[in-house]
């Protein structure tokens, strides 16, 4: 039902568009981590007591979570606004599905491109952290794989959301009511379980960004915790939502 070659061609179309304007996209990608690490890491970090749960300096504590969040953002922008515009305003999918490429190939192709974008975002962030003295070394490879997996989970979630929303205005709910609290309460900046009641912390721990942050910390820090559970969670989460999005996009496009 899904043709890998067709998926690749949908990816290729996006790569061509990106190729024409990557220099606009990549610069903010680069500066965002610089500003975060400077402001939150060096600035705020000075006032955050070291030791305790952090057991080291604050910048090193938040860096892995910020890498995970940037992968999330890369995948989310691509699969929400960008896909919605293509779906409703540009009509380009109408043209695509009149060729041997099917709507299911389009959906998976968009997911694969969003993973690529997430990898560019998250990878840039990861490399910038090196210059702030966050030790990465041989962890680079598992960290990149983790970025790909996080990108996949959020690409699937973004596509699933886009495939059900009727208007573009609803994306502000997705960003403000879901991604922003995820960003704040996923152990990126402080251990949630230490500051909030167990019930609230349990909810946080169930969210995909929390699992992503755990995964990223696990692969980036010496003696990091086991990550198999997080990997399994993100794989299942992404696969289930992508399957849903493939089905919904079909319902939406084929009338």
């Amino acid at each position: 039902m899904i043709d890998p070659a067709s998926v690749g061609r949908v990816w290729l179309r996006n790569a061509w568009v990106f190729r024409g304007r990557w220099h606009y996209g990549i610069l903010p990608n680069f500066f965002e981590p610089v500003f975060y690490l400077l402001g939150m890491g060096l600035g705020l970090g000075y006032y955050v007591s070291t030791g305790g749960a952090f057991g080291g300096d604050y910048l090193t504590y938040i860096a892995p979570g910020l890498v995970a969040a940037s992968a999330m953002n890369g995948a989310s922008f691509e699969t929400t606004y960008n896909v919605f515009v293509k779906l409703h305003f540009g009509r380009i999918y109408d043209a695509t599905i009149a060729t041997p490429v099917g709507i299911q190939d389009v959906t998976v192709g968009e997911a694969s491109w969003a993973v690529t974008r997430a990898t560019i975002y998250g990878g840039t962030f990861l490399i910038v952290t090196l210059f702030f003295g966050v030790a990465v070394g041989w962890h680079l490879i598992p960290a990149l794989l983790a970025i790909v997996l996080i990108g996949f989970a959020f690409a699937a979630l973004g596509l699933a959301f886009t495939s059900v929303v009727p208007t573009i205005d609803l994306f502000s709910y997705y960003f403000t009511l879901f991604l922003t609290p995820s960003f704040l309460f996923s152990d990126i900046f402080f251990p949630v379980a230490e500051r909030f009641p167990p019930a609230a912390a349990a909810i946080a721990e169930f969210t995909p960004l929390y699992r992503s942050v755990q995964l990223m910390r696990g692969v980036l820090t010496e003696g990091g915790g086991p990550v198999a559970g997080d990997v399994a969670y993100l794989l299942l989460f992404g696969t289930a939502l992508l399957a849903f999005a493939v089905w919904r996009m079909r319902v939406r496009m084929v009338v």
Partner: protein
Amino acid sequence: MTSAATADVPVAQARGLSKRYGGFVAVDAIDFEVRPGEVLGMLGPNGAGKSTTMRMMYQVTPPSSGELTLFGMRSGRDARRIKARLGVVPQIDNLDEDLSVRDNLRIHARYHGLGPTEAAERSDALLAFVGLEAKARQQVRSLSGGMKRRLTLARGLVSDPDLVILDEPTTGLDPQVRLALWDKLEALRTAGATLMLSTHYMDEAERLCDRLLIMDAGRVVAAGTPRGLIAERLDPYVIEGRLKGGDDGPYRRLADAVGATAQRSGDRLSVFVPDGRAALERLLGDGVDPDRAFVRPSNLEDLFLALTGRELRE
């Protein structure tokens, strides 16, 4: 363009093909076939079901019931293989605004499975065919409406399809652009391509099409060659007159004599007659001012109006 199909196997065939949206019947149990090497026209007012029929053919709308085969393959089940052999020019341009003119063609060629080199060659050849070489590197949004239409046509041809489906290819275009597109379509026709095109322009249908399906309210109300349909259903001539306050008696008497009805709209009258010259002489003998009556051959527009009525459609 090549036509891979053999002589009498139809390129496409529909039997009892229907499409319903909720309780509304957009296409109502139609039968038709597209024969190899022909230009089949679909003529019908707005809402007749032309686009819906074409969308079912190019596999983006599933039929509600009936049978549809293309190239001997069943619609739906063999969607990917059917689409591989089709070229599509949709009613509304859906070019990719984020890509250049040339990349629009290249990516479509890639969607059709052509390799990078072949895709580039086909794209350049088709840009030349539609006269857009000079615009190759420009963004699509900088093109005029007519240029976009030509690019959409080129895109529909990029995979060298066995059947090209064109949905109102010239609607809304300047006369010059229409003529330019007609030239391209005639070139394709001469090269033996199989085309199916919808239109609500009679001149376009008469000029380009070997055979016509006339559709109205989801049904095929007539099918045949333009000349054959007219000959089959109408007398060969029409007497037209302008009353300018005069009496319509002579026209009514003429209509009675030939067993037709005089159709009146405002100040104008028309009567279909078997012998134009005799009818005109009769009118003049009956006192009609020779400056206000003339004879012309019956045309497709007469047939269209006779079949689909004169009331306005949305």
